[in-house]
C-alpha cells in the first residue's frame, strides 16, 4: 500500500492503518530500534509505542514520507529508553558507544544548554550536513542516526574499518568546528 493511502487510513481513524504500517515498515522500525537497544522486549515495547505515537500524531500531521516520520519517532523513543537504561548503568551497547563518540568531539559544554532551542541546533546540523559530501554524510548518519556498528557500515559501503573510522573522526571534528562557529560551543 502507498504511504499516502496509509496516512489516509490514519486520518479516517481506521485501525487498519497500524496493521498496514506494521506490514510495510515493521522491519525498518525493528532495525532502527534494534541498533539502539539490545533487548528484544525493549525493542518491541518501543515499536508498539511508536505505532501509538504515530496514531496520535496523524492527524493533525500529514507526513509526505511515512518511513522517515515513523523512523524519527522510533529513534526518539529508543534513545529515550537507552538514556534511561544507560543512566541506570544497565546497558553498554553500540548506540551508547556512538553517543560517547559524539561526546568526544565536543571539547567544551554546549552553551546555555538549558535554554537552547533544540530546533535551532537541528537547523544548524541540517546546514552542516549540507556542507558534507554525500558519501561522508551517509556514513555519518549511518553511524550517528541509525547507530549502525562500524563493521556493518564497512560491509554496506565496501570500505575498510580504518577508512570509516577516519572519515567519522574527520566529520566529528568538522561538526565541532561548525558548532563553535555557529556559537553553540
Amino acid at each position: 500500500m502507498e504511504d499516502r493511502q496509509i496516512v489516509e487510513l490514519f486520518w479516517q481513524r481506521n485501525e487498519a492503518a497500524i496493521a498496514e504500517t506494521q506490514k510495510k515498515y515493521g522491519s525498518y522500525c525493528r532495525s532502527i530500534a534494534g541498533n539502539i537497544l539490545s533487548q528484544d522486549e525493549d525493542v518491541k515495547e518501543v515499536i508498539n509505542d511508536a505505532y501509538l505515537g504515530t496514531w496520535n500524531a496523524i492527524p493533525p500531521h500529514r507526513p509526505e514520507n511515512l518511513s522517515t516520520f515513523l523512523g524519527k519517532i522510533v529513534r526518539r523513543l529508543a534513545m529515550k529508553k537507552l538514556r534511561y537504561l544507560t543512566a541506570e548503568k544497565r546497558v553498554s551497547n553500540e548506540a551508547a558507544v556512538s553517543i560517547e563518540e559524539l561526546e568526544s568531539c565536543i571539547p567544551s559544554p554546549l552553551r546555555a544548554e538549558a535554554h537552547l532551542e533544540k530546533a535551532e541546533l537541528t537547523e544548524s546540523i541540517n546546514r552542516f550536513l549540507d556542507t558534507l559530501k554525500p558519501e561522508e554524510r551517509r556514513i555519518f548518519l549511518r553511524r550517528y542516526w541509525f547507530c549502525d556498528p562500524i563493521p556493518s557500515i564497512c560491509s554496506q559501503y565496501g570500505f575498510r574499518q580504518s577508512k570509516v573510522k577516519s572519515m567519522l573522526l574527520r566529520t566529528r571534528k568538522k561538526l565541532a568546528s561548525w558548532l563553535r562557529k555557529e556559537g553553540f560551543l
Partner: protein
Amino acid sequence: MNSWFLSDALGDIRDSFLQEASEPPEKKKTSFGRWAVVAACLCLAAAVGLFLILADRQSSSGTPQGSISLAEHPSQSEYTVQPSSEGHHSQHPGDEAAVIRYAGMQYQIVLTSATTAPRDSWIEVGTVQSAAEGGQAPTADLQTNRAEYVGCRLYQDPANPEELWIEVDGHYEQFHALWETTYSEPWIWYHRLYRQKDVYCTLDVNTQSRKEALPQDAEELGRLRFAPDQRYPSEELETSFDLLDGKSVWYSASQDCLFVELPPGEDPYSDTPSRSSIWRFCPAEPEK
C-alpha cells in the same frame, strides 16, 4: 549531557538526508577496472611496438621469429599477440592477477616481459619468500599469490615506489601498487643515509603500533607534511595520512622507529579518546 542533546537534535534532521542514508549505497568500484584499463593500454602499446620492430626485421631479414602473428594484410589495423608457451608466468586464464606484497602494500602485475635489462636506478629490495596457500592474496611482505615467483628477486626505483619489478628467467615483469587497498593507511617517508629504503609505516595501528609513551632517546625530527592527494609519500617527512599533517615526529635510535603523538580525541582507533596516543612507525622494509 551534551552528546545526548546533540543526538536528540540530530534525530530531527531533514527527511531528505534520512532518505539518502537509507538508500543502499553504491559500492566503490575496485581498482581492478582501472588497472585492467592500464594493463590493456600497455599491452596495446607493447603489441604495436613489437609489431613495428618485427615489421622492421621482416623487411630486413625475412620471416620474423617469435610470438607475434601479423594479419595477412599489414595495412589492416587489427593484429593479435600470441603468448609464447614458455616464460610467461602471468598467463593463468581464469585466475586472479598476479600480486606481490611488499612494504605493506599490494602490487599487481601490469606488464610481463617488460624489459630484459635492469635500470641503473633500480635497487634490489628482496626476494619473494613464499606463496600464499591456494592462490589467496598475499598477507605478508615478500609473499605472492603465485608459486612460480618464489625465489625471484625484486627491484624498485626509490624515486618511483609505486612500481615494483620482478626478475623472471632473465626478463623483468612490472607490478604496480594498488592504491585503493592502502587508502588512508599511515605511511611516513624518512630518509636515512645508511639505508637504501626510506619508508616507515604502521602495519596495524590498532595493536602493534600503539605505545604508551615516547622512548627516552627519542629525538624530534620535525613536523610531518601531508603528501598531496593522499599519495604514497616520496619526500622527506611526508605522510600519506592527513590526520598526521603538522604533527611532530620523533626518531628513536634504540628502537629504530619513528613516533608520532596524537592529542586526545584525534586518534580514530583509540578506545580512550580522552588520552593522547603515540603511534610507532617501523621500517617497512625487511631488515638486511
